[in-house]
């Protein structure tokens, strides 16, 4: 399978895995979108537009592929999720209403979170729409769910990355809230995919513990990403999902 993997920082785990491990079923190619020339252009009050350089390059790179795998953006939820908000909040996750509400936090409507995540994902939507448009109709395009939250505060404190100072000021959000925000964000991205003709692929179940958090062997040395083993697990999942015969019509 000739696959183009494209996206932002979560792509790195997959790229590293593909470099170091053998996946004979696939012939991967990677296109990182972190450079400014691939970032959608946002004018005040206007919907973002893809950069001309991206528009041109993506049309070239998607040709003759069996599959396009996207990890467009995927960390916006951590703007709200990773550290405590100055006005701590919690909400009910629509898809899992029985999850408890945290004590002493302001309870806010889930719609507030959705509205915020929709605003945060305009660039992701812009890129995904263009990738789908650029790709031949017969070629499936997937967007992968971001990795589940790392449940260990100790790990996040040990590898705070650029959040060190802010983390000392605000503290790490409770993992239950981080999990809810990851799920709420994922639901918004899934909705974008459904409206764009893109298949949304969830994080592999075997990378999650019983509570849905990222299992320890997949934690990267930073607060928000999966590591090479996670990348390998995701690639194996992609191979498994896309190798299944299509159901008879």
């Amino acid at each position, binding site marked *: 399978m000739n696959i183009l993997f494209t996206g932002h920082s979560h792509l790195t785990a997959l790229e590293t895995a593909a470099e170091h491990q053998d996946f004979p079923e696939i012939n991967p190619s990677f296109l990182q979108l*972190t450079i400014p020339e691939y970032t959608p252009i946002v004018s005040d009050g206007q919907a973002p537009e893809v950069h001309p350089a991206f528009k041109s390059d993506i049309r070239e790179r998607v040709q003759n592929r069996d599959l396009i795998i996207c990890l467009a953006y995927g960390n916006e939820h*951590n703007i709200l999720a990773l550290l405590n908000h100055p006005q701590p909040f919690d909400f*009910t996750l629509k898809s899992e*209403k029985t999850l408890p509400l945290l004590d002493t936090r*302001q*309870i806010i*409507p889930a719609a507030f*979170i959705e509205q915020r995540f929709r605003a945060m994902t305009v660039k992701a939507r812009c890129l995904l729409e263009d990738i789908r448009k650029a790709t031949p109709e017969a070629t499936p395009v997937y967007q992968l769910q971001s990795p589940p939250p790392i449940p260990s505060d100790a790990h996040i404190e040990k590898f705070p990355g650029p959040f060190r100072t802010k983390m000392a000021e605000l503290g790490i959000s409770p993992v239950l809230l981080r999990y809810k925000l990851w799920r709420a964000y994922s639901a918004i991205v899934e909705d974008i995919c459904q409206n764009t003709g893109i298949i949304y692929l969830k994080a592999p179940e075997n990378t999650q513990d019983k509570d849905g958090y990222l299992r320890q062997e997949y934690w990267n*040395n930073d607060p928000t990403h999966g590591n090479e083993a996670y990348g390998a697990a995701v690639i194996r999942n992609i191979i498994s999902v896309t190798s299944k015969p299509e159901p008879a019509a």
Partner: protein
Amino acid sequence: MSQTPYSTYADYAFWKRSISNLDFKEVDPVVKGDFTISPSDKVVTAGSCFAQHIARYLAREDFNFFVTEPAHPIANTKIAQEYGYGDFSARYGNIYTSRQLLQLFDRAYGSYVPKDNIWTRPDGNFADPFRPRIQPDGFASVAELTRDRAQHFAAVREAFENLDVFIFTLGLTETWYSADDGAVYPLCPGVAAGDFDKTLHKFANFSVDEVTADMNAFIQRLRSVNPEAKIIITVSPVPLIATAEDRHVLVSTTYSKSVLRVAAENICQSNADCAYYPSYEIITGPQTRGRYYAGDSRGIMENGVRHVMGLFMQHYTSKETAIAPPIKADNQSQQHEAMMAEMTHLVEVNCDEEALDPGRKS
């Protein structure tokens, strides 16, 4: 011509001098405010839908519109409004009747817990019978509704205990209540949420004595937690949208507004620092010939609200130019925006680092 008591009366006592000879936009039935509101005074508003205009205007005019239950700053203005934030000082929605106001106080302070306290919606979500329109998609769980209600009651208590001026607009005399324990609903069950049950849900049309007694009881309770509270009572000029009496809605509107107007007079005569503000007369008086009503003869035009609030500013506000202290929501918004900007930057740095230097040691 001999002298009579009328000879000494001011122009405003005479229809010709204060109405006929003036353009309707210049008519001023307020004459004189009973007290002065300074820009720093905390003003809390509640009441029927007309009270929303008052709240909006106060906020716009840099008054200290005291908001104790602002939307979380995550929300933008549009969605916050859809979820009932900012219409009033707390998220109680429209309070149409004096009984509803009295029961809000008692519920907020825990002395009254209605039996009919949570409604299940057809979509499986839950509605607050006493704020049925506050959460358009309903509460996702009983736990969420209960937590939201607890924080709402805390905000109501904060408002009552710290306000300097309470402006209440009496809206209706007609109401629906629970036969179980007399809990009054802002809207007939089944209209915005809930199911109408004719054995449980009963109709009442309050009298002057009932409205007066409810308001006197409320004022007594309010002053038990805030002895210095000043009160302004208004009557909504918005006609009934429907009547549950078997008669024409116009007849019911006249009855309802008449009761409220008389009750307002009674309330203000029997309570110190309680003033009647004649927004009803400004909008409905014959001098306007209906020109402050929208095409449906019910909604109030913006120029009518402007007339009401212009006179309010003239008669009830000081000439001080001090800037009102920023309301709580502004501070929260600033903190939120600062955090969002910083976290957006840090997440970008985190992602750039991961892309450039995967699996680094720290």
